[in-house]
C-alpha cells in the first residue's frame, strides 16, 4: 500500500485526515499462551483506542477472570466470547479496529490452538502483515512453524516476530538473539521477504509504543512505530484488467450492466475486452456508478460496466483485457489447507468457489503432505484436518483462473461439501495444467497497431482486399474462359465463394472497429 499523494505531503507529526489514511490489515498468531490477545489489548490501550467505559469494565473483568492478579489483563479487551473468557483462550478470530495519527488498522487476533487453525488461516488470507508471537521462555514451537507456513502460503510478505514475555527472561539479549537466528532460518526456508524481530513484553509494555530502556541492546523500532511506517506493497494492480462478473444488472430492458469488484488492472471506456472463458469480444461503453460515469476504474473498486454490444455474459465469467487476457483452465495445480475433520475423499465431487464461479471439483489425493516440523514432505494414508499439501484439482468445466501469485482473486478458492455445506478446505492455484478439453481458442495476433474506431479506413481496406482477390481469380479464370467459355460459370461460383470467405474473415477482424488489431484463426473454437 503506497500512501496516497495527498498524505505524503503532510508532515509526519500532523494527523492524516481519516479519508486519506491508508489501511493496514494484520493478524497476530503463534502458539497458545504466547500472549497474542494480551499484545493486541496492549496495542489498543497504548494507541488510546480503549474508551473509558470499556476500561472500567476491563478493571472489573480483570479481577473476575484475569490472569494477572489485580492488575489489568489486556487480553480481556479482545477475548469476547464467554467461553473464551472462562477458559482464557481464543476460539475465533476477533477483529479489532484502531487508528493512530498515521494509519488505520484492522487487526485479527487469531486462535493459537491447532484445533482452530482454520480460523487462523481465515485471518491470514486478508492480511498485509503478520505478527508472529514467540514466548521468550519457550522459543520456537511447532505452532510457530505452522503459522509461519500458512502466512507464507497465503502470500503475506511482511512478518514481525514479537519475542514476548521478555520480562520473564530478565530482558536477556542472548535469549532474544537465539530466537532471532532460529526464525531467520524459517523465513529463509519459507521465502518470507520482509522479517523484523522485536523484543517485547505485552504485560510490561516494553517496545510496544516506544523503545524500552530495559532493552538497550535493541536499536530497532517499537512495534507500533513499525506498524505505522512499514511499506506494504499492494499486489496485482499492474497486471492486466480482470473483473469477475458478480451480478448482471438489468433493471429494465434499456440497461444491461455487469457488476463486480476489479481483481486487477485498470479499465476505461473504449477499451477492448474479452470474456473468459469463451473469448467473445466487445468494447467497454461506460463505467456506471451512482456518482456518475467514470473515465477510469482500477483494482479494488466495485463498478458496473456496460458494453457496446449484446454479449451473453453471466455471473462467473471474467471480463478481461484483450491485450492480456486471463487464462482459462479445467485443471489446476494447487496448495490446499484441509479444514474439515472429515478426511479428503478423492472420489467425492466437491463444490469449488473461485472468485464468483462455483463449479464441481475433484481433488486428487496427494501422496504426501507437508510436515510442519521441518517443512519436508511426509507420506500419509489419509488427508486429515489441518493438513497442508500440494495437489491437482479438476473442475467440471473450463473456468477463468490465474496463479495466486499473479492474481489473488482469481487464484484462491474454497471447497464446500455438498451435503453438509461445510467449507472443507481453502486452496491457492500454483499453475494451470493444460488438458485437451481445456484448450482455449488459439489467438493469432497479426499486427498490433492501436487503431481506434475508424470505419472509413476499414471500408477502404476491405474494398482493397476484395478487389485484390477478384483480380487474382480473374487472372486464373481469364485464360481458361478464352479457351473454354463455360468456365465463366466456374468463375462466377468461385467469386461467390470468395465473397463469403472474405466476409467471414473480416467479421473476425477487429481492425478499424476500435481497440487493437486482432485476427482470430478460424475454426479452432472450443
Amino acid at each position, binding site marked *: 500500500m503506497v500512501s496516497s499523494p495527498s498524505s505524503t505531503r503532510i508532515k509526519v507529526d500532523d494527523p492524516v485526515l481519516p479519508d486519506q489514511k491508508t489501511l493496514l490489515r494484520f493478524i497476530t498468531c503463534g502458539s497458545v499462551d504466547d500472549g497474542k490477545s494480551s499484545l493486541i489489548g496492549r496495542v489498543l490501550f497504548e494507541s488510546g483506542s480503549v474508551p473509558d467505559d470499556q476500561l472500567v469494565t476491563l478493571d472489573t473483568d480483570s479481577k473476575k477472570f484475569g490472569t494477572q492478579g489485580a492488575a489489568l489483563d489486556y487480553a480481556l479487551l479482545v477475548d469476547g*466470547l464467554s467461553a473464551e473468557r472462562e477458559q482464557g483462550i481464543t476460539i*475465533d478470530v476477533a477483529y479489532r479496529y484502531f487508528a493512530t495519527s498515521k494509519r488505520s488498522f484492522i487487526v485479527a487476533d487469531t486462535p493459537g490452538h491447532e484445533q482452530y487453525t482454520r480460523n487462523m488461516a481465515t485471518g491470514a488470507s*486478508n492480511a498485509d502483515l503478520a505478527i508472529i508471537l514467540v514466548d521468550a521462555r519457550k522459543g520456537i514451537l511447532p505452532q510457530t512453524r505452522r503459522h509461519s507456513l500458512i502466512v507464507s502460503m497465503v502470500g503475506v510478505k511482511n512478518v514481525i516476530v514479537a519475542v514476548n514475555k521478555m520480562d520473564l527472561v530478565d530482558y536477556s539479549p542472548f535469549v532474544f538473539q537465539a530466537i532471532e537466528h532460529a526464525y531467520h532460518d524459517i523465513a529463509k526456508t519459507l521465502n518470507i521477504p520482509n522479517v523484523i524481530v522485536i523484543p517485547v513484553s505485552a504485560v510490561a509494555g516494553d517496545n510496544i509504543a516506544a523503545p524500552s530502556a530495559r532493552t538497550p541492546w535493541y536499536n530497532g523500532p517499537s512495534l507500533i512505530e513499525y506498524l505505522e511506517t512499514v511499506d506494504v506493497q*499492494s499486489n496485482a494492480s499492474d497486471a492486466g484488467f480482470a473483473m469477475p462478473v458478480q451480478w448482471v444488472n438489468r433493471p429494465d430492458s434499456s440497461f444491461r450492466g455487469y457488476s463486480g469488484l476489479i481483481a486487477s488492472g485498470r479499465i476505461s471506456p473504449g477499451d477492448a475486452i474479452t470474456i473468459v472463458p469463451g473469448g467473445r469480444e466487445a468494447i467497454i461503453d461506460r463505467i456506471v456508478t451512482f456518482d456518475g460515469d467514470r473515465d477510469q476504474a482500477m483494482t479494488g473498486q466495485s463498478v458496473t460496466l456496460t458494453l457496446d454490444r449484446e454479449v451473453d455474459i453471466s455471473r462467473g465469467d471474467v471480463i478481461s483485457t484483450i491485450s492480456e487476457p486471463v487464462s482459462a483452465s479445467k485443471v489446476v495445480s494447487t496448495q490446499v489447507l484441509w479444514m474439515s475433520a472429515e478426511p479428503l475423499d478423492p472420489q467425492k465431487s466437491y463444490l469449488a468457489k473461485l472468485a464468483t464461479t462455483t463449479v464441481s471439483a475433484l481433488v486428487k489425493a496427494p501422496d504426501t503432505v507437508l510436515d510442519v516440523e521441518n517443512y519436508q514432505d511426509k507420506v500419509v494414508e489419509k488427508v486429515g484436518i489441518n493438513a497442508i499439501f500440494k495437489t491437482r484439482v479438476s473442475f467440471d468445466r473450463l473456468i477463468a483462473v490465474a496463479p495466486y501469485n499473479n492474481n489473488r482473486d482469481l487464484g484462491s478458492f474454497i471447497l464446500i461439501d455438498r451435503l453438509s455445506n461445510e467449507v472443507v478446505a481453502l486452496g491457492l492455484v500454483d499453475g494451470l495444467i493444460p488438458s485437451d478439453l481445456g484448450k482455449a481458442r488459439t489467438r493469432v495476433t497479426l499486427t498490433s497497431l492501436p487503431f481506434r474506431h475508424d470505419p472509413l479506413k476499414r471500408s477502404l481496406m476491405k474494398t482493397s482486399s476484395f478487389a485484390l482477390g477478384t483480380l487474382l481469380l480473374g487472372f486464373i479464370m481469364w485464360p481458361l474462359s478464352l479457351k473454354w467459355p463455360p468456365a465463366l460459370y466456374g468463375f462466377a461460383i468461385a467469386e461467390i465463394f470468395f465473397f463469403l470467405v472474405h466476409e467471414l474473415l473480416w467479421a473476425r477482424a477487429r481492425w478499424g472497429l476500435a481497440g487493437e488489431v486482432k485476427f482470430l484463426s478460424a475454426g479452432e473454437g472450443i
Partner: protein
Amino acid sequence: MSLSHLERLEAESIHILREVVAECEKPVMLYSIGKDSAVMLHLAQKAFFPGKLPFPLLHVDTTWKFREMIAFRNETARRIGAELLVHTNEEGLAQGITPFGAGSRTYTDVMKTEGLKQALNHYGFDAAFGGARRDEEKSRAKERVFSFRNAEHRWDPKNQRPEPWKLYNTRKKPGESIRVFPLSNWTEIDVWSYIAEQNIPVVPLYFAKPRPVVKRSGALIMVDDGRLPLEQGEVPEFKMVRFRTLGCYPLTGAVESEADTLDDIVTEMRESRSSERQGRLIDHDGAASMEKKKQEGYF
C-alpha cells in the same frame, strides 16, 4: 495510486451486498433507521445503481421508537422508492409488554428478537442484511460477515464458517438463514466520515438541540411522548443533547453536546473517551448479554 481507507471499505461492502443478491433467493435489508442503516442503504443504492434496490426494507417496530425516527423512515423509503415492510409483534403488544415494568430484558426479547423472527419467518427471507459493525461490541468482533442461523435463528459462535479472502459460502439447508453484515469492518468514525463525505441524510436526533429529558440511572432519557411514566418529582428539563445511537426512546440515553453539524460530530467523536453503546441500556445487563441475545436470534 491506491484506494483510500474509505474507498476500500466502500468497495468491499458493495461486493458483499451484490454477493448476497446474486446467491440468495429472498434477501431483505433490516432497516433500523440509525446512522449505520443510513450508510448501508446508501451503499446498497450504489451497488445496484441504476436499478432500484432488489430487496425490500424491513423495520421491526417496537412502537417505542422516537417519533422523528418513524417520520425519517417513511420519508427515506419514499425518497429512494424502496419497498418498506413494517412488522410489530402484535402478541407482545397484546400482552402489554412495555420497556417498563416487565423490565428491559423481556421487552427486548419479545418486541425485538421475537418480532424479528416472526417477520423473517412470515416472509420467508433467507438472507437479512444488518448494519452491525464489529467495533461495536466484543461478541460482534467475533462474528463473520456471513453469519449462519439455524431454523431457530440461533447463532453458534464456536462453529462459524471460515471466510477466507472474499469467498463467502452462502449454501444453506432449508429453514436456515444468513445474517449478513456489510459494515463489519467499519468503525463509528468511518461511518461519520463517510456520512459527511457523501452527504447522506440522517435522523436529526443525531444533532444537538434543546430537548426535554429526565435523568434515570445516570442516563438522560428524552420525553418523546406522553407514554413515558414520570416518577414522583421527576420534571422534564430542556437540555442541549444529541444521540450517538438510536433505539427505543425510553432505553436510549442522550449525551449532552453542542455538536449540531456533521463536522462538530466528527470532532466530538475524535475527542470522545466513551464508547457509543454506553447509551444503550440493554447492554449493561451483564458482560455476555449481547452474546446471549445474539445466540437467541437478536441481530
